[in-house]
């Protein structure tokens, strides 16, 4: 293997795939990036056995094609710290890969490309196209509600549902739930529910640009793949049953409060300063045309905010983790938001006025 490439042409795809590569792994080869050099391009692959990222680089010149794996983080650090205009030569010499440019020369250890693990091959059962922007919105709307390292392993990911022309993402950590959906005419008559692991979702959000370019999604029994013009992303799926989100969407909320999102958000941000740092509880008191938000901390300090809202019900006191409320208000982008509430122990449904698609359920805190 021997090729010449501009630093920037290598750096970008290398950064893309290194998201999947752990710096230290019990399997040393998983700290490496696979370089597959053909006549006119290089395929770079990174994997942690759960997700696999492939990106392409275009060299100035390929002298000898070949395949090898080299330490990803080290190659990335070398590329990053070289001047922008550098032109690199990568040359496999025996067991080592020599990276050289100008008066710099780095000799890296390699491991055989034949030992690099692939995700097993699989068949797509549902395939369709959508724009990068559409997928990004679904992820942005919901990913923040995913659980993290929960024993209920199926919550540590994002539900991806194709349901007769509707594409839906759902995330929950057991205390709050986020749901977003969009119409997708081409998938009519197809049904599929899969859970993408948390790490894969976060990687996708890192990689996906928000523009109109089309991407192709393919979902199989145990895998999902996304083909973008810049990269391809594959992930194993979480084998588990995601809770039925339909059961937790409150249906008959008796109270409805409409507020300016920015006003409510700013009041919550200020109140949260004096909420208990650990529990983050705040008390919402709903009165006709008025919402009072009160926070207390263990030092007996108190924050009190009163904002004007549209509300005609009787008085209700309800506690919330202000972090959960702010997550929703930060994600919505409408001017007005509506909270549908029943009582102090029942879930609250939050949505943006005019923002079709995203719904949020937040469970209260006992005060």
């Amino acid at each position, binding site marked *: 293997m021997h090729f010449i490439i501009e630093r920037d042409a290598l750096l970008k795809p290398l950064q893309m795939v290194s998201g999947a590569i752990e710096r230290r792994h019990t399997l040393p080869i998983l700290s490496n990036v696979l370089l597959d050099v053909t006549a006119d391009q290089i395929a770079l692959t990174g994997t942690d056995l759960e997700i696999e990222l492939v990106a392409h680089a275009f060299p100035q010149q390929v002298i000898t094609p070949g395949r090898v794996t080299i330490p990803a983080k080290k190659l990335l650090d070398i590329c990053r710290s070289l001047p922008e205009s550098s032109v690199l030569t990568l040359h496999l010499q025996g067991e080592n890969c020599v990276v050289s440019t100008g008066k710099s020369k780095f000799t890296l250890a390699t491991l055989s490309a034949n030992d690099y693990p692939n995700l097993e091959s699989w068949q797509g059962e549902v395939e369709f196209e959508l724009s990068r922007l559409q997928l990004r919105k679904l992820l942005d709307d919901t990913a923040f509600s995913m659980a993290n390292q929960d024993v209920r392993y199926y919550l540590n990911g994002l539900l991806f549902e194709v349901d007769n022309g509707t594409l839906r993402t759902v995330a*929950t950590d057991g205390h709050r739930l986020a749901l977003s959906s969009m119409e997708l005419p081409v998938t009519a008559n197809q049904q599929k529910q899969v859970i993408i692991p948390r790490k894969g979702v976060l990687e996708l959000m890192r990689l996906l640009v928000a523009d109109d370019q089309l991407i192709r999604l393919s979902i199989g029994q145990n895998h999902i793949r996304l083909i973008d013009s810049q990269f391809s992303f594959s992930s194993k799926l979480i084998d588990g049953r995601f809770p039925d989100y339909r059961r937790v969407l409150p249906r008959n909320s008796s109270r409805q409060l409409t507020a300016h999102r920015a006003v409510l958000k700013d009041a919550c941000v200020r109140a949260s300063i004096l909420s208990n740092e650990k529990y983050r509880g705040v008390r919402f008191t709903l009165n006709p045309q008025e919402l009072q938000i009160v926070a207390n901390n263990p030092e007996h300090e108190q924050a009190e905010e009163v904002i004007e809202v549209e509300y005609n019900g009787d008085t209700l006191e309800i506690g919330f983790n202000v972090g959960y409320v702010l997550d929703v208000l930060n994600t919505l982008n409408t001017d007005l938001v509506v909270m549908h509430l029943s009582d102090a122990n029942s879930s609250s449904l939050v949505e943006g006025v005019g923002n079709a698609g995203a719904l949020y359920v937040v*469970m209260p805190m*006992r005060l």
Partner: protein
Amino acid sequence: MRKIIHIDMDCFFAAVEMRDNPAWRQVPLAIGGSRTERGVISTCNYPARAFGVRSAMPTGQAFKLCPQLVLVPGNMEKYKAVSTSIQAIFHRYTDKVEPLSLDEAYLDVSECDLFQGSATRIAEHIRQTIFQETGLTASAGVAPNKFLAKIASDENKPDGMFVIPPEQVSGFVAHLQLRKIPGVGQKTAEKLAKFGLHRCSDVQNADLTLLVREFGSFAEVLLERSQGIDHRAVHTDRERKSVAVEQTFSQDLNKPEQGLQPLADMYQKLLRRIERCGAQEHIHKVGIKLKFQDFHQTTIERQHPELCFQLLQQLLTQAWLRGQGKAVRLVGIHVGLKSQAEQAQLDLDWQ
């Protein structure tokens, strides 16, 4: 009614230095910053106190009172290490320990069932244990609340203790100098004296409006303390994370079957203990600990919302296998509890 113990190490820093250098026992000794550095005395021993040397006194003044004073700069690392072992002793009796400083702590022993729950005997045992294990003496105060316990620990200092049983509280406070109430310093005491208030009984009989006018919000505290009332709980920074029971056997056990009866007994004991601290609703883990004959130990924990004997049996068998035939000297069982935040936050109900 709570049972509170206040433990106060006797001239702690000086005591540690005297322990490690017995020649200093008989001479006036102080720990503190030097005269040239305009230092102050942080602690001194009783011979030094006989000359009038006191904590927080400028070192220069201390030398005027006692020219032969031996001044030691102090070794905070050492004191911290000793303090850690003393804290560890406290935790053998209760988890409700509120450290006030390196040498002082409140213990709430209301739920401690050692010595038939006698706080007096617990306190005496703690003092003995501290002496046996660190070579240092402590004084203890035992009372139904923090403020009285703190005053009590000062009554028979050094190396003594004083008990204020609930029925003697009113008699005790009646004669108590107001100056002894934490928060009543020299200035407040002088002001109280101006109104003829010297003892707690004076405040009990004082005009409430005068107290509030003159002392503001402190009047409420003053009034409560004068009646021997103090509702403050012993604050452990760390909330209770688990409830546990364990047993070391007089003879090591060779087979898991031998562990079943002790396990059943501990199960009952743990159930009662969980109930006593009202933790039934907050269980989220159940676990077991085994210590083998070679003192190697192993623990297994499972997520589970209640203490369940069958699960304990399973865990016992599993843990036993890890010993690969080694005899077992100790079995412990515990439940892990949800944090307060986890308790307050309600769950989505998708069942």
